[in-house]
């Protein structure tokens, strides 16, 4: 892997040029009130490289909250036409845990029947990753991740103070930096490693991730599910902000004329009360505790067994967004450990 460097000023000029000249949308992190969000950059002035976490993960660009899948005419069964809005995009400043989440999402959307709506958008994207420069109270990514981020990143940036060290991970990344003032790296491996690990996580997952599938099975009847479930609003915040949650609902919408319709898919989530309601009205996860348990089993058992990678990247968004403060996997597992 080639390692270069660029001064922060030069990097900002590089991004500004991309915004102005490219046929590609340039997406970065911007301020939204007192929080941060990914958004199309109109000027590099808006770009925040020093942020704790974004409200929504980058999945919103690959699996939009609401997406048209096809158009049809309600009275003509053969009239459907697939719609796939996928611009060329570059995402800048994506933290390593969010890159790791896309590693899982890519697997989920390409396993078996390939999902063109998701995969085309991913293929049309360039991912400029980075190591976080700001502490986030709920983050525990270090204790659940290995090197998944490098399977998604095209470029990784490491903040060295005045410069970024630039790791060119893929050929796509190599092409993307063409024309910028990227020069030979002068930093030692030790210095780079220190910079990568400068921001510590306070939280750690209390059970080794390899053991979690078995641990969950053993604790299927643990009181945590009911105790925490009782405090759950079933508001879905934890799963909607989750970078590895990809469940969706599909429905049809018709225009007022009833002549034209669209099939849309929207984000859905297993923590919502009606998620598991079947056609005949039966809900096979009617109780809050059952839904609460299901979510942890998905992350800790289902996904790891299917994709050989822990289903949670430790971003801490679920813990932060939960009004009742019960959603964080660290808190759940600690409670289980404390109440054996």
């Amino acid at each position: 892997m080639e390692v270069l460097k660029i001064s922060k000023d030069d990097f900002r000029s590089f991004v500004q040029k991309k915004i102005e000249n490219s046929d590609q949308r340039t997406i970065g992190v911007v301020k939204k009130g007192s929080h941060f969000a990914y958004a199309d950059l109109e000027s590099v002035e808006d770009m925040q490289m020093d942020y704790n976490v974004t409200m929504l993960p980058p999945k919103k660009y690959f699996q939009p909250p609401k997406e048209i899948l096809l158009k049809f005419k309600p009275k003509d069964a053969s009239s459907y036409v697939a719609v796939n809005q996928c611009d060329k995009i570059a995402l800048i400043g994506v933290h390593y845990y969010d890159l790791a989440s896309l590693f899982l999402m890519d697997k989920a959307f390409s396993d078996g029947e390939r999902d063109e709506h998701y995969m085309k958008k991913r293929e049309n994207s360039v991912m400029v990753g980075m190591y976080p420069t700001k502490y986030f109270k709920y983050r525990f990514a270090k204790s659940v991740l290995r090197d998944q981020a490098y399977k998604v990143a095209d470029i990784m940036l490491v903040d060295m103070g005045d410069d970024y060290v630039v790791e060119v991970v893929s050929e796509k990344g190599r092409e993307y930096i063409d024309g910028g003032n990227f020069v030979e790296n002068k930093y030692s491996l030790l210095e780079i490693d220190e910079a990568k690990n400068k921001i510590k996580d306070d939280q750690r997952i209390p059970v080794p991730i390899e053991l979690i599938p078995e641990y969950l099975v053993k604790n299927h009847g643990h009181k945590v599910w009911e105790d925490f479930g009782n405090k759950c609003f079933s508001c879905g915040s934890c799963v909607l902000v989750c970078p590895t949650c990809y469940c969706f609902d599909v429905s049809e919408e018709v225009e007022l004329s009833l002549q034209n319709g669209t099939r849309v898919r929207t984000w859905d989530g297993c923590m919502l009360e009606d998620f598991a309601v079947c056609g005949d009205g039966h809900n096979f996860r009617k109780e809050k505790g059952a839904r609460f348990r299901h979510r942890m089993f998905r992350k800790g058992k289902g996904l790891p067994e299917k994709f050989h990678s822990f289903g949670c990247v430790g971003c801490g968004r679920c813990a932060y967004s939960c009004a009742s403060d019960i959603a964080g996997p660290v808190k759940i597992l600690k409670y289980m450990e404390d109440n054996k």
Partner: protein
Amino acid sequence: MGAKPKVAFFDFASCEGCQLQIANLEEEVIGLAELVDIVEFREILTGKAPEYDIAFIEGAITRDVDEKKIKDIRSRSKVLVALGQCAVSGGIPRLKNNNPSLDNVKKMVYGDKYNMPHLDTYPTKAVNEVVKVDLYLPGCPINNKEFLRFVKEISLGIMPKLPNYPVCVECKLKENECLFDLGQICLGPLARAGCDAICPSNGVPCEACRGTVDNPNKNAMHEILEKYNYTVEEIKRKINIFGVDPEVKK
């Protein structure tokens, strides 16, 4: 339902703001008029019809004369829809029921003129306390896009359904800052979505004007409000604005 459903609008105790939301559809009103036959709608046209495929009822029931009228409408309607929160639950007009004396309520509002005969009303009832209601379109005011969805689905023979998830979902999809994070108390975690989180999107906490989801977790809400040092009375007053049952297990 034949070619074009005959649709009528009626109002009882309300501000008529929900019908105004329909009038506010502007060019889409024309599309609506092509889809259905609007036979009575006092806010935008004159005319009467003997019967209706769909009757939209705005407002709460507060007088005997209203009760007679709504029963008559019901008897001439195939589908009756409660339009807006006053019709659905009693809404704002129901607030007076919290006061043990309706005379006191009148005095508070109208001063020494409180005894005028047209102010004579009984405790507010939701429409379904008087006649059978087939469908509910909640909100204060209604979401006019949801109204259009209802009309389309009824026309297509589909039973319209309301979202059974809280407003938090819509805030998350819009990537709104959570008002709890900003130190405000929001009823979003209990409230039925479908409004596209219009209030929180504009920095205003949710007051659950569409009522709650089917199984709101009031105990959890109670804990959160206590955490933020709200008194039980304040909680009840807040939750009670739109007739949401404030009872929490203590």
